[in-house]
């Protein structure tokens, strides 16, 4: 499998993770504004969380079941109430309407839900070009778009969900166990596609139980335990 060289790795971010009383806003070692910046994000289950994520960078989050990994992703997507601030390209989340934030910081649940009868009905006309061009990369074929969703396998639906999340061209992708239901070949295809997206400037936070996947995909691996993110 082709692995792109990681364009960015910043130890200083990791430092600020450990000493969370010192948020280092904006100015990182490279001087670039981070794509996603998280400051003192917290809710009942844990926090405060502080980290920066640059375009092309991937963070993997691991940890025991029930540690709140999904809750953290939902907080980042502004789907659950919380305190603290997050910025996208330096723009505070509170300065934009919630749908605008969520269409750029897209959260994909572990068991993605569908609200139409077929997968194809979930895509807009403008997204069809992307969908047709990307189906093959995930080992899917066009007939699956028109098939009733309950006839597709869990793995097919999970790959279609990834396609759905990518179709809106998000800046940051928050993936909750995106390949849990996939066979090894499909996992490799999905990872290749995601690595491709990273190379084009997307940032990804992936929650995964698979140690090997975390190592393959991520520049940094965090462990979420007891409401704190710990650098692996």
């Amino acid at each position, binding site marked *: 499998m082709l692995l792109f060289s990681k364009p960015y790795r910043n130890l200083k971010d990791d430092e600020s993770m450990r000493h969370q009383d010192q948020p280092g806003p904006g100015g990182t070692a490279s001087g670039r504004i981070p794509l996603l910046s998280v400051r003192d994000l917290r809710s009942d289950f844990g926090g405060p969380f502080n980290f920066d994520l640059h375009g092309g960078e991937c963070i993997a989050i691991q940890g025991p079941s029930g540690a709140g990994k999904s809750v953290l992703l939902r907080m980042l997507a*502004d789907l659950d109430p919380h305190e603290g601030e997050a910025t996208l390209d330096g723009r505070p989340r509170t300065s934009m309407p919630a749908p605008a934030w969520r269409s*750029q910081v897209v959260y994909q649940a572990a068991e993605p839900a569908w609200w139409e009868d077929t997968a194809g009905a979930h895509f807009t006309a403008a997204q069809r070009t992307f969908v047709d061009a990307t189906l093959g990369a995930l080992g899917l074929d066009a007939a699956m778009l028109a098939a009733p969703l309950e006839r597709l396998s869990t793995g097919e639906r999970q790959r279609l969900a990834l396609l759905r999340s990518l179709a809106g061209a998000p800046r940051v992708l928050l993936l909750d166990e995106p390949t849990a239901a996939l066979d090894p070949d499909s996992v490799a295809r999905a990872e290749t596609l995601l690595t491709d997206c990273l190379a084009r400037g997307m940032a990804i936070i992936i929650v995964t139980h698979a140690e090997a996947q975390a190592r393959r995909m991520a520049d940094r691996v965090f462990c979420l335990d007891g409401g704190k993110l710990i650098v692996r």
Partner: protein
Amino acid sequence: MSAIHLGPWDLMAAALLILLDAALSIGPRLGVHRQILVAAVRMVIQLSIVGLVLRAVFAGASAGATAAVILFMVVAAAREVATRPRQRLHGHMNYRIAGAVVACAGFATVLLALTTAVRPTPWYDPRYAIPLMGIVLGSVLNAASLALDGILDGIVRERGRIEAQLALGTPLRTAIAPLVRGAIRRGMIPVANRMSAAGIITLPGIMTGQLLAGMDPVDAVKYQILLMFLLAGASALASVGAALLAVRALSDERQRLRLDRMRR
């Protein structure tokens, strides 16, 4: 108007039917005789009290007494609406939504009728205001409780689908619109049924009452048509209000779905 007055013995004859009901239940062991007897006694006591209270209020024709009776009716209807759905909201939100919807829909339609179509003097004449409010509240109760139950159930059932849309940047209003429409439609079904069945399948209650009281059928029909329009208006207000207020209670300014505001 020449109504035939009923004496105690006339009622006793009809009461035999209740005893017959009970006997029928004891025979094949349906086990409902107790319920029927209790309900019958309760009904007699309730209606007798209402009759006495209304006689006093009508005789006094005071604004205060009329307002008190109507307020009591509104509170009772709101309580029914609030307790009907299986799902409950935090902070007595069920009661607040029900109270707001029942009061607004009830007062708006009854005041409209009193000031435009019926126009008694004084406008709050209890002989008109109280029965109008009563029949309107009956419809409002139906519509609001069905719509509230529908929207709360729907949101719980469809949570995953709504949040999947939110997560892709769909506005909450768009994601939840089908549920809102469904709940409003549900609330409107009873009044739609009553309107289409009126006169053919059933003789509506008010019309029956006025015919028995000796009113000319065409006049009775006019009253019934006015009432049907009032009921349709009140039902629509109540359904829309209940559905929208419930969505408001279960969402926040960041367009999140807040099921944490629901009691388990």
